[in-house]
């Protein structure tokens, strides 16, 4: 298990390196584009341009440029915004990360709990009216634009019914967990539910399919022949094995959410997370911030994927050798 974790970490570092190269190439080696103008922002004066060129070694070969960039990003961590001069990028990101994590982790817990309840229930009651309902909920979930659902939720909780049943809903924004846990949860409640609504259905559907497949496996027949109760067969055998593919799907989605897919939800609900930071810097093409956000987001994605892989190996002994 330890060697597995070691190998997985090495692989993660390699992927991270490749992503950093890719990001670097997108921003600095797109043909026909002057990167200095990009970093300096719109309408920068010649002096600034020259300074940027020097600072990022834009007059030097590409590998050195890459090295300098990484040095600014990770070692010196002195990359600063060119729109709001002097604003260091990295501390901003570190400040925003807990917001994003609060949003995604909370939503993930809600949608996984819902998915488990709906998935196991519909697998146990297969062939009833439950099936098409679960299927439709899943399809609608993957078909609704996340940001739009957020807007519609806002429409009702902040405006239309705000004087009625939703009068307890606080205004958009974020309260740190350390400041006031109750307010933290209250502010995040609808963002969590919105995000969870999109995923719960599809996860319930996937889980249902996996459980039904598992229930047809030979080992379930063996378990029955052993004289186990149906409940134990479902929970300890069928559900336990169905977890494996669900967890790997969860890893992909969780990583994608932390690494950017949640940014739309952050924007809509006014949560100052990494996604919001990215979007704000997009509005005025603040390249250093965008690049920093992308790199850090990629870091979270790779980290999430690695954690999931380790979890996967813990769940599935067959994966440990891979």
């Amino acid at each position, binding site marked *: 298990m330890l060697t597995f974790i070691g190998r997985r970490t090495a692989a993660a570092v390699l992927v991270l390196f490749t992503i950093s190269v890719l990001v670097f190439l997108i921003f600095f080696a797109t043909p026909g584009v002057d990167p200095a103008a990009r970093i300096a922002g719109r309408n920068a004066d010649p002096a600034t341009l020259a300074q940027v060129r020097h600072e990022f070694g834009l007059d030097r070969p590409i590998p050195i440029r890459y090295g300098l960039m990484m040095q600014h990003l990770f070692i010196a961590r002195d990359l600063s915004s060119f729109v709001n001069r002097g604003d260091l990028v990295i501390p901003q990101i570190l400040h925003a990360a807990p917001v994003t994590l609060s949003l995604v982790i909370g939503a993930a817990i809600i949608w996984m709990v819902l998915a488990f309840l709906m998935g196991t229930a519909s697998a146990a009651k297969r062939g009833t009216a439950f099936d098409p309902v679960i299927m439709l909920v899943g399809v609608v979930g993957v078909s609704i634009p996340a940001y739009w659902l957020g807007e519609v939720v806002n429409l009702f909780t902040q405006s239309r019914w705000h004087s009625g049943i939703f009068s307890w809903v606080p205004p958009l924004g974020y309260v740190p967990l350390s400041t006031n846990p109750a307010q933290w949860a209250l502010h995040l409640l609808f963002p969590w539910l919105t995000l969870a609504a999109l995923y719960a259905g599809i996860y319930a559907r996937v889980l249902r399919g996996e459980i039904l497949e598992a229930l047809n*496996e*030979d080992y379930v027949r*063996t378990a029955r*022949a*052993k*004289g*186990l109760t149906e409940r134990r067969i479902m929970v300890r055998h069928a559900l336990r094995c169905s977890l494996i593919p669900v967890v790997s799907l969860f890893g992909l989605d969780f990583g994608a959410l932390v690494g950017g897919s949640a940014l739309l939800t952050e924007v809509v609900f006014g949560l100052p997370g990494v996604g919001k930071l990215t979007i704000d810097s997009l509005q005025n093409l603040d390249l250093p911030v965008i690049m920093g956000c992308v790199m850090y987001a990629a870091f979270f994605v790779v980290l999430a994927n690695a954690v999931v892989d380790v979890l996967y190996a813990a769940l599935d*002994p*067959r994966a440990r050798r891979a």
Partner: protein
Amino acid sequence: MPDAAVPPAGDALLEVRDLTVSFRTRRGLVTAVDGLSFSLGRRDVLGIVGESGSGKSVSMMSLLKLIRDPNARIEGEARFEGRDLIAMRDKEIRALRGREIAMIFQDPMTAMTPVYTVGWQIAEQIRTHESVGRRAAHERAIQLLDEVGIPDPGRRVNDYPHEFSGGMRQRAVIAMALANNPSLLIADEPTTALDVTTQAQILALMRRLRVDHGSSIILITHDMGVVFDIADNVLVMYAGRAAEQGPKHDVFHRPRHPYTWGLLSSVPRPRAERVSRLPTIPGSPPSPLSIAPGCPFAPRCRLRHDKCDERPELAGGIVHVDACWLPRDRRQELRRSLIEKAVSEGDPGDLSEPTDSLSGSDSAR
């Protein structure tokens, strides 16, 4: 031992009468097992033989209520130590499963849950039916693995199923089945998925278990050679019905049903003088949807005649019975003529020779 085929009731461990399993389908009622009757004495080994689809697995699974299809209907009577299994409620039969009657299945590769260690699964079996501590169950699992011949059981007990080879997995499955000392072990094609050497080892293991644990065994197989190796009684099934049943020696020395003749000549014999293509029975078993109303084997039988349009009942003796319309006193003669015909036509594909070479090695057990 030949007298064990139909022993008086009460002495038998399992007494099955008119077991019928049918499924409601869109195309009507399909009968998978049709009026099966047999009895099994204590410490006896019954071999149930037939091609795939002949209803041998379905009949055994129906005894333990392991058929989950809500469209299945099971009728008849199956007295196990005097209690009717078919009439039992789910809870009652669950208490029997694994404890009194254990069942193992064909493919050892998929028979165990992949995410738990072999020891965990054996311990689960023990703790389901006995109140034993975790530690004690683990120790018993090691003992059981040792007993079925797993080397270094103290270490291998913590291995996962995928770390075992096919033969070892089947041994582990057998160890699990034996964990609660069941009085009946039903083995559904336990050796089919294994290579020849492993096959022989598993059969030897089962033979030993019968002596050490005193369990009765029902062995489901399509391989006459396996039956010959281990069974006391034979039940030949075709299209959900018994074609012939009786003590092993009778069935192997004086087979009466043309289908049994075919099965016996389908046994590959390494010691045969000429290397011939593995003989087969012409045609294929009927789909359960289209079983002939008369004798189900008639469409494939070379000796069919008008009478075969009627359904033959099991008859012909006390312990050795068959379901065929051919005159019983001329059966051996007819069989020989079939073989001569096949040989003269240069077609070794059917009924190539009598089974002398098989019966010659009889004393092996």
